[in-house]
């Protein structure tokens, strides 16, 4: 049971700088538990105190957003590819500046 996980720049301080790591688990929750065992502190960055995925984190299984596949209960199979990315909609500049302008 091996799942390939792509790690965003912002979380590589936990993986010794590795861009890609391997983990195991039948669900995304299991996988994150396994990754936290390998890289202590990793899970906490992705999951809120209430136990849900952080609002500004997107996780994809084989390029599909897990929030539409059961979120942390999303099923994983051997050979699946998991990608973790911060939420930054296109036009990063535009929204950051606009958010500032509108006082948000």
């Amino acid at each position: 049971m091996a799942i390939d996980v792509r790690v965003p720049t912002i979380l590589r301080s936990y993986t010794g700088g590795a861009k890609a790591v391997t983990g195991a688990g039948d669900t995304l929750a299991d996988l994150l538990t396994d990754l936290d065992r390998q890289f202590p502190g990793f899970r906490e960055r992705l999951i809120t105190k209430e136990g849900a995925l952080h609002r500004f984190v997107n996780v994809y299984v084989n390029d599909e957003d897990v929030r539409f596949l059961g979120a942390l209960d999303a099923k994983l199979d051997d050979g699946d590819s998991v990608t973790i990315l911060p939420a930054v909609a296109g036009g990063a500049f535009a929204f950051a500046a606009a958010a500032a302008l509108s006082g948000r």
Partner: protein
Amino acid sequence: MARYDSLLDATGNTPLIGLPRLSPSPEVRLWAKLEDRNPTGSVKDRVALWMVRAAEAEGRLRPGDTILEPTSGNTGIGLAMVAKLRGYRLVCVMPENVSSERVTLLRMYGAEIIFSPAQGGSNKAVAVAKEIAAEHPDWVLMYQYGNEANARAHYETTGPELLRDLPTLTHFVAGLGTTGTLMGVGRYLREKVEGVQIVAAEPRYGELVYGLRNLDEGYVPELYDASVLTRRFSVGTQDAVLRTRQLVDVEGLFVGFSTGAVLHAALAVAHEAVKQGKPADVAFLVADGGWKYLSTGAYGGTLADAENALEGQLWA
């Protein structure tokens, strides 16, 4: 009737065309909604026009006023055209490293441009934008990421057009940026078509774009409501380029890279329907043509070359 009283009246009512060569089977068909056939060549003309009209109706925008929008993309070009024809001044704030085509085009439309230093990234841009806003409290910001008129343009026009032209529609696929297209069309179709699938294709850029210092700097547009979507795909640069080229090669459609990403997701759901033995009419949205992206060099050479050419760029 293809005669209009003015350019603004020619916004919307775009063609929906079948793609018989890319469709997986006669029962599972792909359809492209050609939003590049809008006055300035992108889906954003609908958004620009609706946001300006809404601001006029609310009394926020009066003749001669100045519109401020921090954009270098299609929304800026659409707003520049609408502002010119309706008598407003437009000021765009953009980083100094955007392509020269965009700057030339915006200036031709009479828009003024305030550059923020490329160095310093978005933090610097935010600072610049704050200064401008403080100096000019009377300027009117459209803010497409949180402006409900953005989604409403699609609820009132794009959605009804799709259903009028394709009553058997089963899936709608579009790119996810401000989320306005998917929210507006998605809400409309969900009200009218039982079991319709609303599918998002989100561009996955090179690593540079995701270089936040911490996760709290992340952003989700205020317009976004996940309950409108059925599924959401992340499409990498290579797949987007491959599909963009395939669309020209097989169906003769020359589109921007965001549409390549959308086609990738549309083909995924179409092939699933084939596997399940279900008929499907999958409509997807062509946000713009490829003209503005030719200078990236990503239309020629190998896929690896194209991916390198687009590294670090917001190609959708």
